[in-house]
């Protein structure tokens, strides 16, 4: 029972950064810009979350009184950091029509190095980590429930791994969906990703739209980075362990659609969690192997490949993605 509870709550916990990252990727690609820089942007988001927390707030009264408010502000901070960073990609890819994958790669190399150097500039040590002051996750009490009155596994399932980011990411998901499909902005954004010339011909400013798309992407990815760091022993370690790239996969897996992305994120996270528990879950066979968990750790990736293979027919990337917008072209 507990195992299941943990499995589920962890799945949710680690689906959050993936979800945010993938939604980020979605906004960028729906506007026509391939954002392979998610990894780097997430790192920057996590970095500034760390800087902000360890710096400004750490010993202020706020921290005790309204921890969740701090978490919220930090989300904004990391989001903005990601946003600003992502503009580097936007500038190269949109204004200068650079190859989007290449400029994205550049950002990915830049981010971790930048993180270390910023920490150096702040502390004069070659450190690569900024521990967060332990941010209280939303426990049962925060909802006025006395955790002693509820079954342990229920508590584990619902509250043990519940962070503000978890809840807000669902909100973000719903907003993302509404914006994309129910607003004029969304319609225009999608048009820019599908057929920029058409959008231009009806007076939509494609350049502006794409900048916006990438900016939103940066904002969400930044938050994603923070969510990751918080979930991961709440420390910034100049690295998001490849979650940015996984988010990219999740996005494609989710076919650039918000709710499918949610599903994909959960799917992926679920199998990652299973793999981790492999060595401890008795009913999983070990095939007489040492460190068999490594076998199970391959699973989510292989499964994703298999699923992609089967869904490839239906999968459909935004038509104009990756192509620099060029009004002259016919």
């Amino acid at each position, binding site marked *: 029972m507990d195992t299941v509870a943990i499995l589920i709550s962890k799945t949710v916990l680690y689906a959050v950064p993936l979800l945010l990252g993938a939604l980020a990727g979605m906004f960028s690609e729906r506007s026509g810009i391939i954002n392979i820089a998610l990894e780097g942007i997430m790192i920057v988001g996590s970095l500034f979350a760390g800087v902000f927390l360890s710096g400004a707030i750490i010993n202020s009264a706020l921290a005790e009184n309204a921890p969740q408010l701090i978490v919220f502000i930090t989300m904004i901070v990391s989001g903005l950091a990601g946003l600003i960073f992502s503009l580097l990609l936007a500038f190269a890819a949109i204004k200068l029509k650079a190859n989007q994958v290449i400029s994205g790669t550049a950002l990915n190399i830049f981010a971790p190095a930048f993180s270390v150097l910023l920490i150096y500039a702040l502390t004069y040590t070659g450190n690569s980590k900024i521990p967060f002051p332990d941010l209280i996750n939303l426990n049962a009490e925060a909802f006025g429930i006395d955790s002693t009155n509820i079954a342990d596994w229920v508590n584990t399932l619902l509250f043990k791994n519940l962070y503000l980011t978890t809840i807000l990411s669902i909100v973000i998901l719903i907003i993302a969906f*509404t914006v994309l499909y*129910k*607003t*004029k902005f969304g*319609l*225009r954004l*999608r*048009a820019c990703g*599908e*057929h920029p*010339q*058409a*959008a*231009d*011909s*009806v*007076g*939509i*400013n494609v350049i502006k739209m794409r900048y916006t798309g990438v900016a939103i992407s940066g904002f969400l990815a930044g938050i994603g980075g923070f969510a990751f760091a918080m979930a991961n022993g709440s420390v910034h370690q100049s690295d998001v362990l490849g979650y940015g790239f996984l988010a990219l996969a999740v996005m494609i897996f989710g076919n650039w659609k918000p709710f499918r992305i949610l599903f994909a994120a959960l799917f992926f996270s679920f199998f990652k969690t299973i793999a981790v528990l492999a060595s401890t879950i008795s009913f999983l066979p070990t095939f007489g192997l040492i460190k068999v968990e490594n076998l199970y750790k391959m699973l989510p990736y292989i499964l994703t490949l298999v699923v992609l293979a089967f869904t490839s027919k239906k999968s*459909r990337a935004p*038509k104009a993605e990756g192509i620099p917008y060029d*009004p*002259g072209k*016919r």
Partner: protein
Amino acid sequence: MENYIIEMENIRKEFPGVVANDNITLRLKKGEIHALLGENGAGKSTLMSVLFGLYVPEKGVIKKNGEVVNIANPNAANALGIGMVHQHFKLVEVFTVLENIILGAEPTKNGFLTTKEARDKVVNLSEKFNLKVDVDAVIEDISVGMQQRVEILKMLYRNNEVLIFDEPTAVLTPQEIDELMKIMKNLIKEDKSILFISHKLNEIMSVCNRVSVLRKGKYIGTVDVKDTTTSKLSEMMVGRHVEGVKLSDVKKKGKVVLDVDNITVISKSHKNNAVNNVSFQVHEGEILGIAGIEGNGQTELVYGITGLEKISEGRVLLDGQDLTKKSIRERNLMGMSHIPEDRHKHGLVLDYNLANNLALKKYFQEGFHKRGFINKSRVIEHAEKLIEDFDIRSGKGATTPARSMSGGNQQKAIIAREIDCESKLLVAVQPTRGLDVGAIENIHRTLIAQRDNDKAILMISLELDEILDISDRILVMYNGEIVAELDPKKTSANEIGLYMVGSKVQDKAPKKEVKANAKRH
């Protein structure tokens, strides 16, 4: 003085290495249909794009009702009531008709889209001007004709009063064209003013009040339609006298070269078969023309024959050899050449230079390589010979990047390459698409020459005149089937048109009952 609604004065627009518009002046009267005539690359689209705010001219002024206006972008144009139907439609394929129409002028209630009244407005408009469209259909599923109606509705939805049509008829059947002409007349009644681009003189004569002619980016002149003739116009357009090529002699057909036996090709875009049990033969020394509206299976038919797509049933034989299972290269080597419909997608590797493009079907053959190592000099020689023979013009001869060549010359290069293969069969799809009369004449001559020395030619075209002019025999395709076999001497554009829209079906043609296709009309 006259009351002009639009005046474009001394417009100059340059593109890298090209003066697309050189000091052009164009005046549009209120309530007239004004034709803009010119060869490929004459600068028609560019001029209109300038008026529509897509390009910013280097020189010149634009006046609306006498006052100078600044049209920096399509928004400004819209604000001034100027709308445009583009040569290559600008529709988002995965959006619905409605979404495409409202895009850029979306009605919203506190931030959210409200399609209700937009829908009503569109429906009213489409009834008023009888522009039949299915508002909720997705663009990629509807016919080209309907897509065009969507483009027109886009303008009307924005209450534009100056309407620009860039080569609107190129893709339409005679019936659809008549339809469009009526629509344009109606629009005039609703005191709109229209700028109408076309290569087709008879259309211009039939609806337009005045014609302005461009040549190589220069303004040649403006004349009243009532006091000019088609031949005068074509002379103004090309700068010399042209008479279209026609098949004069009648050759008796030789032995069968291509035998298409009952083939079926499954469609990618919809569940019906794109090609349904089609059978026909092409003989030595004949040009078989296949007429039909875009999207009735011609493309898939060609793919099936040339091997770009698998056929699900039936056989294709070349000189009696079954090549149904053969690869594309084998087919080529067995004597099949193919002038593709889309020269940029299939015809050329735009980033290769001309020489490599001309070697695309030769590089692997004797003499072009030694044990896998390409013989560059041979490739160049070969290219130079073709450039010579087919008069392909380009900046740096053999080493010109194909991308920088003109549509016309790109097409010439492809034709040169295919004919150079000396195949028994030449499949020519849209061989003169979008080319000007001069180029067309030239290409038609080449095709006929091939026919005359006993090659078999299968020509698929949307241009009825082309079909009528140079085919020995005509098949009409509708909804994936051959619905008629006709003799060009004994039929007319109109009759063919009726078969093309399926409103007339021939009994003698190998006919199956026609599956209704939800996605069309």
